[in-house]
């Protein structure tokens, strides 16, 4: 490669002006690219929602007799939906099924987990 500018004071001025303003322009371009990064999160959420939807569809196909609202009081459904929304931190989600826990000893199990967890070495 050969030098584009002459090795003179004028050349130094030309190099400086071009370099300074091009740097501004290019770094602004990087700024524009970075400002579009939040879109990545939206696309990711969209993918997750689509995947969850597809999974939900499968569940529905497997167990059509277990709709969310069947045999559940509306106030319980509302409370559970609100809790799930809070846990999911507003991310798109879908509640497929609500039913009583089949495990009779779930409270006991929770207690044991909490007790054992408190002794975990940190």
């Amino acid at each position: 490669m050969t030098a584009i500018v002459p090795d003179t004071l004028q050349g130094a001025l030309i190099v400086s002006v071009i370099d300074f303003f091009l740097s501004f322009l290019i770094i602004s371009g990087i700024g524009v690219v970075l400002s579009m990064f939040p879109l990545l999160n939206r696309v990711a959420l969209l993918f997750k929602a689509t995947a969850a939807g597809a999974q939900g569809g499968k569940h529905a196909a497997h167990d059509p007799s277990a709709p969310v609202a069947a045999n559940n009081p509306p106030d319980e459904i509302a409370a559970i939906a609100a809790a799930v929304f809070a846990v999911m931190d507003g991310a798109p989600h879908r509640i497929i099924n609500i039913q009583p826990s089949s495990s009779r000893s779930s409270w006991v199990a929770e207690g044991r987990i909490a007790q054992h967890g408190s002794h975990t070495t940190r």
Partner: protein
Amino acid sequence: MFLQALLDQTGAVNFSLGNLIMIIIGIIMIYLAISKHYEPLLLIGIGFSCIVANVPGPPDVPGGPAISALLYAVKDGGLFHYAYMGVEKLIIPPLIFLGVGAMTNFGPMIANPKLVILGAGAHLGIFVALILAKLMGFTLSEAGAIGLIGGADGPMAIFVAVKLAPHLLGPISVAAYSYMALMPMIQPPVMKLLTTKAERQISMAESRKVTKLEKIAFPIVIAIIVNLFFPPVAPLITMLMLGNLLKEVGVTDRLSKTAAGGLMNVIIIILTVAIGSTMAADKFLTVQTLEIVVLGLIAFLFGTGSGVVTAKIMNLFLKTKINPLIGSAGIASVPIAARVAHIVAYKENPKNLLIYHAMGPNLAGVFGTAISGGILLALLGVS
């Protein structure tokens, strides 16, 4: 007679005033590192090597000039020789960038994209030094290499110096790293001169949270952009981005810890010894070196000032004002310049914690220097 012969075997008779001056400079570097905590990782190694490089040994050849044991080792092979070769052959700068990438959280830069413009604004010093160097009689290539000291990015300064003016590598790298270490002394007066107390007290709102996905996408996107548009500086930025990707993916902890820890420490030791060993009085205490040192200081001062002024200009158009002190961090020198901006603001208002905000322009400054260096190499016909 016997005593004289014995003395001739030592370097004592070759000790010069220049050696004494350089030893004092080395001691000052170590003092600043220990007592003021000015970049001890850099200054201890550079300062110590500077001292040793100025303790003359016997002449290399009978009747020839005295040469220190350290420089003898550099000249004649061995560890120090290869340490210097690592710098000269551009092996060490990309490895430093790998470690820097593995240590750096680019979140602040991703979170506030408008601040990246400060990474370009704070580089006026490069061009002021370049023009002044040309006026002082340096060639355009030499002037470009000297100007890039103002990018406050040691590996990039070395990289460009090797390509544009390899014979000036020693003084350029010494000036770049010394001034980076001395930024806590150089920057604050300029920052205070160009801002009012009210401006220095501006608080900035918390930035948005950056997701893991964004942090993983960032190094990939930047590596593509830089390799596409700036091939001359691609090796450095590519390694920076690889290091960062190793950190952010979360599945290569071993590699990122090695890059940011053990490997980085080894490279720092080699680099500082290699730089310090170039500081022998007969080579360093020359008019040309002094000119380069002065030009480097001018570049740092103008870079700091232009960053602050750019931030103030941005404030004319922004609804939510930014603290102009963070403009000075756009000069690069991660994370020293951001820390300086934070400390200056903290002294004005102890409730004002600017470090996160200053890291945005600080990181953008790395890219600003790389872009300036890349354009410079392209304009001067160096691939």
